[in-house]
Structures are given as C-alpha cells and as structure tokens.
C-alpha cells in the first residue's frame, strides 16, 4: 500500500477531499458574507441558519413533496432567498443608518429564532438525505477512491464561486454592484435603483448559503445545528481572508478547508481549532487579513 509520511495514501487523500468539501462550503459562505457586507455593511449572522434552511428545504421537499435532489438544488435557494428578502425589506433596511453592530445583533437574533424553531420541530438528531442516484457510487483513481458525489460538491462549488466572480468583476451589473459598494449615493444619483440592488444582493447572498446547504445535505445529515457551528468558522475564514476581494475569500475558504483536512490526518486533536490558530497568526502578521484592505 502506498504511504505518504507514514500515512496510507488513501486515508490522506480521503481526508484531503473532505477538507476540500469543507473548504468549498467555507468559500461559498464567506463569499456570500463578503457580498452582503460590501453593500449592506452588515455581517449576516443568520448566514449559517440560512445554510441550514437550504438543507432542510431539500429534506422537506423530498419527504413531503417527493421532489428529488435536482429540484431541491434549484428550488431551495430561491425559497430561502425569498425569506431573506422579506427579512431585508422588513427589518434590515431599517438599520442601514445605524451602527453596523446592530445588523450583527439583529441577524444573531434571527439565527436564534430560526435554529430554535427547527430544533423545536425536528429535534437535534439529524435526518439522513440520500445521495442522488445519478451521483451515487465512486471511481477508483488508483491512489484513492473518489465518491462521485463528493467530487460533484467540490466541482459545483468551484463553478458557483467562479461564476459569481465573473458576474461581479466582468459584467455590467457587477460593475454597478462594485460602484454601489464604493459609493451608493453617487450610483443612486446616476439613476440606478440602489435599494433594489441591496435587496437583491442580500437575496443572492442568502441563496448562495442555501445552495451550499443543499449540497451539504447528502454529505452531512440534515440537522438544525449544522449552521451555527459552521458560521463561526466562516467568521474566522473571513477575518483571515479579509472581505476586500471575491477571489480572496474563495481561495482562503478552499485553502483553509484543505489545511483542516491535513490537520485531521497528521494531528487530529487540533483539527477543530487549526483555523482559529491560523486566524491568530494572521492577526499578528497582517491584521487586515490576507486579501483585506483597511480596518
């Protein structure tokens, strides 16, 4: 059997793949956080809860409507985004003129409500969600066994991140968005409806989280607590990467996922803390974050 540094290669690559999957979720979630923060100046604490909602909508669709994975992948982000848009219109929009901390507190409260409600309804034991049959099984690559679904998660997330990057950096709509991030008043004066743009951006960020949730459903079980543990790690990822650049957040997410996977192989005790340790080091060396600008 092939080994790397005394670790069986199959185990090493298996953990690396799991790391990549986690990294994909970090990337998609921190991308959404960065987008929302750029335009709304709010750190969306309910991002984790919205990711969890994505997974739950997929499970509910399957259980009560018989709608499968592919339908869920299309429908769940839209449904959760609609909830997000309602939240933005009725609550968040009242806070834009206040200290940014209030947005954090409000979305924290919303996260508690959502998580508490799902816990009350479905308990905390977690529901299994089967891998769709098109993506079941795996390939033997020689050095490792690749479950197709896991490969799909990494691929789909990477495509999603690249697509978002392209839409923001290379299209006209993206240019409006970047301009509104820099100076909303001026963009508004040019005749662009900034409030609508803000609402749609929040909806899109939330949809990204829900999409990640659907992707996660077959990998982890569907559990009301799946979001809150993830979001704190994603906060650390955001501090490490800085929220200045889209590609920055995406790369940081994938890199940290890989690092976590490696830690699981070589020093499992530190696997749950390694990202926070990296955050400490980055704060010491480059307080603004790897790709960040300013405070």
């Amino acid at each position: 059997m092939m080994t790397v540094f005394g670790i069986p290669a199959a185990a090493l690559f298996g953990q690396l793949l799991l790391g990549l999957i986690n990294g994909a979720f970090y990337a998609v979630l921190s991308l959404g956080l960065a987008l929302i923060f750029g335009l709304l100046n709010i750190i969306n604490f309910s991002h984790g809860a919205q990711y969890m909602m994505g997974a739950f909508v997929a499970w509910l669709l399957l259980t009560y409507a018989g709608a499968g994975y592919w339908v869920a992948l299309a429908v769940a982000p839209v449904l959760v985004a609609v909830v997000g848009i309602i939240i933005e219109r009725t609550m968040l929009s009242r806070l834009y003129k206040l200290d940014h901390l209030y947005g954090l507190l409000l979305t924290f409260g919303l996260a508690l409500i959502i998580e508490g409600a799902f816990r009350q309804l479905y308990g905390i034991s977690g529901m299994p969600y089967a891998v769709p049959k098109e993506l079941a099984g795996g390939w033997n690559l020689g050095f490792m066994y690749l479950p197709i679904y896991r490969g799909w998660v990494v691929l789909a997330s990477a495509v999603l991140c690249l697509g978002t990057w392209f839409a923001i950096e290379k299209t006209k709509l993206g240019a409006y968005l970047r301009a509104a991030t820099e100076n909303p008043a001026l963009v508004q004066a040019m005749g662009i409806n900034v409030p609508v743009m803000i609402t749609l951006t929040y909806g899109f960020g939330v949809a990204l989280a829900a999409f990640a949730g659907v992707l996660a459903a077959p990998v982890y079980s569907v559990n009301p607590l799946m979001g809150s543990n993830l979001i704190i790690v994603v906060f650390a990822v955001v501090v490490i990467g800085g929220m200045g650049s889209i590609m920055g957040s995406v790369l940081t997410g994938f890199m940290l996922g890989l690092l976590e996977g490696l830690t699981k192989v070589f020093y499992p005790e530190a696997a749950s803390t390694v990202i926070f340790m990296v955050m400490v080091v980055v704060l010491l060396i480059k307080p603004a974050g790897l790709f960040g600008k300013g405070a």
Partner: protein
Amino acid sequence: MTRQTLFVLVLLVLALAAPFGIYPIFLMKGLCFALFAAAFNLLLGYVGLLSFGHAMFFGWSAYVTAHAAKEWGLTPELAILAGVALAAVMGAVVGWLAIRRQGIYFAMITLALAQLMFFLAVQAPFTHGEDGIQGVPRGHLFGLIDLSDTLTMYYFVLAVFVAALLFLYRVVHSPFGQVLKAIRDNEPRAISLGYQVERYKLIAFVLSASLAGLAGSVKSLVFQLASLADVHWHASGEVVLMTLLGGVGTVFGPTVGAFLVATIQNYFSEAGSWVTIIQGVIFVVCVLAFRSGIVGVLAPFLKKRGIQA
C-alpha cells in the same frame, strides 16, 4: 441625603431581604449573570467594543475555580482568585489580538477565539468534557465562614456583586472612564488629542474579562458545577442580550436584563428550544424598536426625580 443615595439604599435593603421571599439559588444565578453583564457592559457601553466571546472568560474561570476548589482543596476566596487571574491573563492575550481590528471584525475575532477556547475546554481532560466538573465544594470562606449554607452563600455573592458594581461605577466615573467614553464617541479625535487609544482599550478589555471571570468563578461555587454550557457561544450571546435588554451604557441596565433573562430561562426551562426562540425574538425587538433598553427608557423619568440610573 440625596435621592440618589436613598434610591441605592432602598435597592440594597431589597437585595438583603430578597432571599426571604424569593428562591435564593435563583437570586444568586441572577446576581452572577448581572455581574457578567455589567462586566460586558463596560466594553460595549463605555468603549463601544462588542465582544461576542465573553463566555470564554466566564466559562474558563468557572472551570479553574471549580478545579481549584475540588482537586486542590483551595478555600473559596483563593479558588475565585485563581479563576479571576486566569481570566485576566486570557483577557490580556485576547484583547491584545482583537483590538487590532475594529467594529464588526472585533466581534467576529472575539467570537472565533471564544470558539477556540470552547474546543480546548472540550478536549482538556480536567474539564471532564460533557460531564463538567461536578460536586464542587463551596468550602469555608477564609477558612472560617461555611458557605454550604444557602443564605450565607447568598450574602457572600451579594457582597461580591455590590463590590464589583461599585468598582465598575468608580472606573466609569474616573478620568480613565472619561477617556473610554471619548474613544467610544470619536476614536480619531481621542487619538489626535494624544491618548494611546490601544492601551486604554486593552486595560478596559482586561478589566471586563476579569470581572466576567469573577462572575463565572462565583457561579461555579453557587451551582457547584462548571460545564461546557458556560463556555458555549450561547452564553456569549446571552450576555449581549442581557445588556441590550436592560440598557447598554447604563449602571443598572445589565442587572435588570440579567434577572429578566434568568427568569425566562427558569420559566421555560422545560419547554425545550423555546428559550432560544424567545431570546431571538427579544434580540430582534430590542434592535428594531427598543435600542436604549429598559433602563435606558426609564432613565429620563428617573433623572427628573434626581436619580441617575
């Protein structure tokens, strides 16, 4: 005698008489929460720093005090001192790291560091994981006063609480406290006036962490238990809630908020996740409609009658 002194005296008499009407353990829980919230309020209310990780000081001090009292057989005051000392050291390190960033980043960094300390508490053998440190002896204060008597324990907790609140009052109304408020209101101006803002923030952070630790230490003796719940991010969120509900930047607000949150916890303790949902709703209502908190709303009425809340 001014109305202010009269007001404080009335509160004090009420606090002294309370255990004869209300379940003392509940009162002590409220007082520990209140001290925790008052410590947190020093940062949010007077320096404008939102720490989302204060449970790490509360919970880790609880562990150290519990361990010191149970395994090392230290007297309660020394066990508490050990807990507070740890919180102060942690506060210095965490504060030193977190004040490198401002606003929202500060909140995220403290939350992430608290999560780091949570996982360390899960893994460290002396915390006994899910079980926590159980059956912590309350011991004899200074080797003399037996704290296993609930009423004696209550007056001890009350004494600690009043002393800590007086200390905080002193800090906030000192020249040092004035500088803190200046930093809160306009940091660039405070810098341009020549104040070493970072140093002030760090000292405030260490003070706040130490007092949060004191609250955790006392709590572990009251309940004779130190557990993961005290280091969990939920506890960090709860202390924010208490302060917000009672009134950020008021002297008595955190106490009012703490007792309300403790009441909700007790009242709904059998009702599963409802506590979480209600706490979430209070957060949302406070932020949207009630940003000055209960004491903040009452303050103008009290002020007309010569009482500063």
